[in-house]
């Protein structure tokens, strides 16, 4: 919402000045205590023994391998989920078929399942104590306590992000433009790349941004399936937990500060998208 589109309501349609001031103060105080204080705590704890100690702990081999693993996992999981999101949004918005609402509910399911339950479910499917898992192990395909498991767990928890952003935008845009392209002789792929993709690119970027933030920070599901093998299956959040439990506070908070910086960057990019390209995002994102 832009400031010019809605002038501040006055007179009978607003609250008395005193009430307004009181509410604004409540909001500022509570937001500071609930949101800003923890954020500041991350950086002050990381720098509690100087910037040198923080940087040194980030240069350790444990920290570097955790950062590397987190980046690789996100590089695989996020594009896969983006591809899924585009396919799902295309199937759901361009065609009419029965059971669509149920399908959307299934796509949203990971939002309401506990990450730990997600990890547990993956362990039960792919773990060595299940029939399928035993077969995988016999063929030397390790998923649980290994890299593929971490990718699957990350995909599970970030599953709905891209599809959720694309579906409302593509419903709003309809299919007239694609139909015009097809009438003019374009192939399906050409219509997608020259008509659909430019229309949805900012919504896609928005979804990928949120998906990536969650992918790099996922803890519960990865904690269950990774087996926490130091230097091999420890992503950044898992490493933070290990360092914290070993009372290596500066090292834990330095790694946490890197993720907090990433979160801040995500919020800034997200706000920029909301302000500059609001018309091209889903209606609920336009504020």
């Amino acid at each position, binding site marked *: *919402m832009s400031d010019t589109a809605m002038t*501040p*309501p006055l007179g*009978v*349609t607003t609250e008395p000045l005193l009430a*307004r001031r009181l*509410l604004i103060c409540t*909001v*500022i105080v*509570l*937001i500071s205590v*609930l*949101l800003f*204080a*923890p954020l500041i*705590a*991350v950086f002050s*704890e990381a720098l509690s023994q100087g910037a040198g100690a923080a940087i040194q702990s980030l240069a350790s081999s444990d920290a570097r391998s955790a950062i590397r693993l987190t980046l690789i996992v996100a590089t695989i999981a996020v594009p896969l989920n983006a591809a*899924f999101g585009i396919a*799902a949004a295309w*199937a759901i918005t361009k*065609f*009419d*078929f029965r059971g669509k609402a149920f399908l959307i509910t*299934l796509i949203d*399911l990971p939002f*309401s*399942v*506990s*990450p*730990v*339950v997600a990890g*547990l*479910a*993956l*362990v*039960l*499917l792919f773990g060595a104590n299940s029939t399928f898992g035993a077969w995988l192990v016999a063929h030397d395909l390790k998923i649980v306590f290994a890299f593929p498991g971490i990718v*699957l767990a990350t995909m*599970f928890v970030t599953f709905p992000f891209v599809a959720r952003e694309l579906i409302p935008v593509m419903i709003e845009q309809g*299919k007239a433009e694609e*139909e015009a392209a*097809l009438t003019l002789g374009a192939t*399906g792929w050409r219509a997608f790349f020259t008509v659909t993709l430019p229309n949805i690119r900012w919504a896609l970027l928005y979804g990928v941004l949120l998906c990536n933030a*969650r992918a790099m*920070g996922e*803890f*519960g599901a990865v904690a*269950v399936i990774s087996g926490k093998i130091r230097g091999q299956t420890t992503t950044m959040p*898992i490493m*933070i*937990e290990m360092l*914290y439990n070993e009372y290596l506070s500066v090292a834990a*908070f330095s790694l*946490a500060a890197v993720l907090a910086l990433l*979160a801040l960057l995500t*919020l800034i990019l*997200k706000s920029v998208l909301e302000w500059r390209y609001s018309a091209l995002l889903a209606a*609920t994102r336009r*504020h």
Partner: protein
Amino acid sequence: MRANTWRSPSPMPGFGLSFGIMLAVLSIVVLLPIGALLGRGIAIGPADLWDMVNSRRVWAALGLSFRSALVASIFNLVFGLILAWVLVRYRFWGRRFIDAAVDLPFALPTAVAGIALTALYAPNGVFGQALAQLGIQVAYTELGIWMALIFIGLPFVVRTVQPVIEELESELEEASATLGAARIYTLRRVILPTLTPALLTGFALAMARSVGEYGSVIFIAGNIPNLTEIAPLLIVIRLEEYNYDAAAAIGIAMLLISFAMLLAINIIQIWSRRRIGLV
């Protein structure tokens, strides 16, 4: 074109490809694992399943997860409504900054939030010290779990109610005022009923997220069995003991809670669409 009762005919290409990719990925990543969990439950059998859930420690953990999620979500319901109202209706310095900051809990990894909150509320932390003088201990008590879940669930109600407040027609408020209603009466009898579906949706989303929350809670909770041990942690403990059946039993109990939440969200949305045409 083939006559098809399941889907309406369409000139658009790519149905097979996009539907196939969607179904394949959905199955591998979500449906098969969830099916494996439920299948494990069937293999164990209802009697044994019930025996494994029906212990003091499991009930305490499930009760704690549900109760603290409820407390935190009720706080977020009230504060989220105030926050959304202030952000849409009032103009003040720093409004856009706060608006952008509301999504911080979505962007900040849960483990980071967990250790940050613990550092603040631990007996030697900034807030912990101040509260200790008042005789309140937050970290390593149930109060700490509430703080973590309030942090995690903060954006949900705000983000579902905000767009609805933006769409409110000021004519309704003007009419109410013209007819002699006091402002507080207008807010209670005109505004609040319009916002109720969105408020309930946000509340249910926050609940669903908080019940299963793990990363931000385990650092601040203290994790004492029967007292501050949340259900997801108990699953992790059972898995570390290689007791897969007991882990699956608690997992299924939590999954049923998730399904109930999802059902509640869907019912609220159908009800709200019928009532005022808003999603």
